[in-house]
C-alpha cells in the first residue's frame, strides 16, 4: 500500500485545479461544471467550494451526472443508478466534466454520450484528480490532472474522502 496524495496535498491540488479551470474559463463565462456520480461528486463539490472563494457563486453552474444507463457493460453487470441533476441547459456551453480517477476511459465515453442528450455543447473538457496514464482502452485524455501515476492493471487506486471514509487520502494497493 502506497500513499499517492495526503490530505494536505489533496487540498493544494483541488485549489490548483480550480484555478486552472478559471484560467481557461474566465469567470466561468458560458461554462458549466458536471460531476460524475457517484465518486466524482466528492471532488467536484470541493472544486466548486474553492471556486466560490474566487468568483461570485451565481456565476457557477454545477450539475451531477449519472452514467449508469450508458455503460457498455450493462449485459455483464447491472449497477445501481444514482441521481442525475442538471438544472440548466448545457446546449452551446463549455462543459468541464469532473471525476476522481481516469483509468480505462470508459466512464468518460459514457458521460460524453449522456451529455449529448442534454443538448449539443460547444466544448467538453475533463478534469480528474488521478490519471492512471498508459491504462487507457479508449482515446480519451484529461485537460486538468491532479496527479498522473503509472500503475499495473492489477493495482487498485482508492480515493477516499472525509464524507465517505472519514478522511481525505489517495492510496495505491
Amino acid at each position, binding site marked *: 500500500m502506497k500513499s499517492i496524495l495526503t490530505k494536505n496535498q489533496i487540498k493544494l491540488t483541488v485549489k490548483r485545479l480550480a484555478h486552472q479551470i478559471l484560467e481557461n474559463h474566465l469567470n466561468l463565462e458560458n461554462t458549466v461544471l458536471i460531476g460524475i456520480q457517484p465518486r466524482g461528486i466528492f471532488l467536484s463539490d470541493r472544486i466548486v467550494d474553492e471556486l466560490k472563494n474566487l468568483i461570485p457563486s451565481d456565476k457557477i453552474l454545477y450539475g451531477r451526472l449519472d452514467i449508469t*444507463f450508458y455503460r457498455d457493460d*450493462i*449485459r455483464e453487470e*447491472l*449497477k445501481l*443508478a444514482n*441521481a442525475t*441533476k442538471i438544472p440548466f441547459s448545457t446546449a452551446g456551453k463549455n462543459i468541464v466534466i469532473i471525476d476522481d480517477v481516469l483509468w480505462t476511459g470508459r466512464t468518460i465515453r459514457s458521460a460524453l454520450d449522456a451529455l449529448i*442528450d*442534454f443538448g449539443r455543447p460547444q466544448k467538453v473538457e475533463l478534469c480528474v484528480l488521478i490519471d492512471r496514464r498508459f491504462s487507457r482502452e479508449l482515446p480519451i485524455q484529461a485537460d486538468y490532472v491532479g496527479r498522473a501515476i503509472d500503475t499495473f492493471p492489477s493495482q487498485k487506486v482508492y480515493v477516499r474522502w472525509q464524507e465517505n471514509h472519514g478522511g481525505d487520502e489517495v492510496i495505491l494497493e
Partner: protein
Amino acid sequence: MKLSSKNLLGIKDLSREDIQLILSTASQFKEVLQRPVKKVPSLRDVTIVNLFYENSTRTRFSFELAERRLSADVLNFAAGTSSAAKGETLLDTVNNILSMKVDMVVMRHSATGAPHFLAQHIPAAIVNAGDGINEHPTQALLDAYSMQEKTGRLEGLKVAIIGDIMHSRVALSNIYLLTKMGAEITIAGPPTLIPKYLQEAFNVNVTYNVKEALQWCDVANVLRIQLERQNQPLFSSLREYNLAYGIKRSLLDSIDKDIVIMHPGPINRGVELDSDVADGPYSIILNQVENGVAVRMAVLYLLSPQSANS
C-alpha cells in the same frame, strides 16, 4: 445489484428490497424523461414482445414507450389480429416468437396464471401486464411510486382501496405491495364486491362505508367497476352504485381533511368517480400515468438479460 426473481409475475414474489430497488431506479428514469432527449441506450441489444391477449390502452402504450425509451426493439401482438384467432395455443405462439430471438415478454391475459404457466416453459424474462383477476404488478408499483412522490412515504401511510375489489388485479397487487412496505390498508365497497377472506388473509381493515374510509385515509385509490368480468348482477344499478359508493365532491367536502385521489384508469365517470373529483385538485391520476413509463423502464431494465458468465 439485481432483483431476486428473473420474472415479474406478481408483487407476491417480490421482497421489500426488490420493491425499493425498482422504485429508486424508477426515480432515476423519471429524470431521464425530463431531458431534451428522453432516451437511454441501455436496452439497445434487447428485443421485447408485447403480447396482449386482452384490451389495453394505457398499459400497452406505457410499456411500449418504456421499451422504446430504453432503446429496445419492440414487437406488438394483439390477440384479435393474430394467429391466436386461428386457434394457435399460447405456448406455440410464444415459442414461435422466441425462435425469432426475442429476449423478453410482456404479457396481458384474461386467464389468471397465464404468465406463471409461460414462465415454466420458456427461458425469456416475463413481465406480467395483468393476468385475469390475479395481479397487475407494474400498476401497483407505479401507484406506490406516485403515493411516495406525493406524500413522501409508504411506511405508515393510510391507503383506502375503494370499489370493485373482487374483480380487480390492481387491488390484489396493491395490497401485497403496500403490506410489504408497511402501509396501512382499508378496503371499502359494497359487500358483494369484497371477497370474504380478505380481512383475515391480509390483515387489512374492511368497511362497507366509503365515507368512513375516506375520513380515515391519506390516499384513496379508487378502482374501476369491472362490468366485463361480472357475469351476474352484484349491485342494483350503476346509478345506485354511484349514490352509495361513488366518490363525489360533496363527499370529499364533508370530511375534515385533504386526501389524495388515485385511479388506475380507465375511469367510469359518474360511476366510481365523479368528474369534478377526477379532474380536481386532489387527483394525481395523470401523474400516475406519467410515472408508469418510468416505473416500467425500471422493471425492464432490472430484468434485462445478463450474459451467462456474470
